[in-house]
């Protein structure tokens, strides 16, 4: 496999940031949270050039944290990220512009006091991709590319709708001419009809510009639509990774199967219009994950082994891995449905 983006053994722990007062209180027995959160544990991923990797999971699974590590925004506790061999972070700083991010909330990710043209041109000017006199034309070209009227470069963010602001955010990321794009829930805050527009824009741009993408979302249908491969995360670990059609069609991990099954799906030509099942229990707190396999308390296939031994990622096929002691049973179950 031709690896372009390599995420090597990333772990990130959020330590409880206690003030001196809180530390004393904790010693005296007050209820202060001193535990740290293992947001991401031992994640290793490789993405090919031009591929879109979807990252899915529920809240607390670590996908946003992992996204920020890959984007060079957050320095991981251990591990490193490299694009085409070159490291993303060095000496606690991001040293490349080759990876850019589109954030979730289009209302919060644009500086309300700056003209949108300046927001988009700021990075390119600082990194020499364009000059101050040329900036206007440079931004205008990117505006057109994302479907915005170049006349609007002098307007302020509050004058745009949510979908338009997200286009501006995309223009900002692309104006840096990145090779890798991290999209953190880019359509979650948008209306359904606008989502379709932005998803189409995303597909078109990633194809035209040959971008390698990591698409983070909790919306499984969106991920299924835009990704080539998908990684499913649970409490900071990747439980399954593989081509979208395979993982969605024949999940190998019990969590994947349960998760996909619990999303209401409109199946217009079936007798039952909406199909879904419910999962037992809730995601445990990342402050105190279960022993052994994190999913075992809720897993229908769990055995004693699962309570004591953390499963490692095993190869199911060439492009597919799963971290489960009983994945073969899971695959067999799905086939028999």
């Amino acid at each position: 496999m031709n690896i372009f983006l390599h995420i090597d053994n990333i772990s990130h722990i959020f330590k409880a940031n206690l003030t001196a007062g809180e530390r004393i209180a904790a010693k005296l027995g007050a209820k202060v949270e001193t535990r740290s959160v293992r947001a991401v544990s031992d994640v290793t991923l490789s993405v090919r050039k031009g591929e879109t990797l979807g990252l899915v999971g529920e809240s607390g699974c670590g996908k946003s944290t992992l996204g920020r590590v890959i984007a060079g925004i957050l320095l991981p506790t251990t591990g490193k990220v490299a694009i085409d061999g070159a490291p993303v972070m060095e000496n606690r700083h991001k040293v490349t512009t080759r990876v850019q991010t589109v954030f979730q909330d289009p209302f919060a990710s644009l500086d309300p006091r700056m003209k949108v043209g300046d927001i988009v041109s700021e990075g390119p000017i600082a990194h020499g991709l364009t000059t101050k006199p040329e900036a206007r034309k440079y931004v205008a070209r990117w505006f057109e590319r994302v479907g915005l009227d170049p006349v609007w470069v002098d307007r302020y963010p509050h004058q745009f709708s949510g979908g338009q602001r997200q286009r501006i955010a995309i223009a900002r990321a692309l104006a840096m001419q990145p090779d890798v794009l991290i999209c953190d829930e880019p359509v979650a805050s948008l209306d359904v009809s606008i989502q379709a527009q932005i998803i189409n824009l995303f597909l078109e741009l990633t194809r035209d510009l040959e971008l390698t993408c990591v698409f983070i979302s909790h919306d499984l249908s969106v991920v299924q639509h835009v990704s080539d491969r998908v990684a499913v995360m649970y409490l900071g670990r990747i439980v399954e990774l593989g081509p979208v059609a395979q993982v969605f069609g024949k999940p190998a991990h019990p969590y994947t199967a349960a998760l996909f099954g619990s999303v209401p799906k409109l199946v217009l030509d079936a007798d039952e219009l909406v199909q879904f099942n419910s999962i037992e229990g809730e995601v445990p707190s990342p402050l105190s994950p279960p022993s052994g396999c994190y999913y075992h308390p809720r897993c229908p296939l769990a055995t004693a082994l699962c309570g004591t031994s953390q499963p490692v990622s095993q190869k199911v096929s060439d492009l597919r891995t799963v971290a489960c002691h009983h994945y073969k049973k899971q695959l067999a179950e799905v086939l028999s449905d």
Partner: protein
Amino acid sequence: MIEPILSVKNLTTHFFTRAGVVKAVDGVSFDLAKGEIMGLVGESGSGKTVTGFSLLGLVDAPGRIVKGSVKLNGTELTTLSGNELRSRRGREISMIFQDPISTLNPMLTIGQQMKLAIDAHEPLSVRASEARATELLTQVGIPSAKARLRTYPHEFSGGMRQRVAIAIALLHRPAVIVADEPTTALDVSIQAQILFQMRDLARETGTAMIWISHDLAVVSSLASKLAVMYAGRIVEEGRTATLLRAPRHPYTAGLIASLPAAAKPGTPLTQIPGITPSLLSMPPGCPFAPRCDRVTGRCEAEPEMTLQNSRGWRCFHPIGQLAEAPV
């Protein structure tokens, strides 16, 4: 014909802001039968949330109900005084909000909050309130409910908090519950649990529900009938399965077609061009005309709701009918 438990006719709520009059809800009418679950679907700006708020009389200045009628159990709600409305709110009609964090008072335990809610309408002794609260918490699926009465909201997860909100809404056995996007802020798996729970609860208690959502799949899993809103109006309504399988209004069809689930992976999605109109300055005629591919000169006039056996659509050129020659 059984009398509907909730009858809304021509409900109109406007917001009188500095920038102009925002016609958030512009003539909404529907009936809700006992034990029926209706889905109110729409995107942001469609007026669905303001409709819900209007039913409970929770619209704050600068907005107010300008005209129309809301009849609950035969009583007209829009003309009631503040006190009379308050005595019905929570007892005959109650609401569940989207954000479970802000619904519950962080300073009170669950038990205290539920007691407050109980005392608001029919004060019970401490023991009786505890019993009632425990009964309801168990009904909504909270384990060890009696012990949980002494916990604070922040000790609960989001899903649990929403269940508590549902329990509070059910305390006085209301005839109608208005649920405004109650599962949108929750994880997928929790959403699934709560959807199943609500379905069972509605059946057990006979409570009618209005489920407001932007998510067609979620709302269709519960509701037996749907009303689709656009720009403050209901543009289509009907039984869920019929409406989704054969939509008549181009907006409904566009919504269904633009779902990622409807397309082959990797292919461009069907998209509705343009953006939702500003409620401040709506052009005359059909509000969807600027984005519609079936538009003709006729659409410069405002379409009325065409009703046909509990199926309704507000369009001059509904799908399933040949597009007429331009006038």
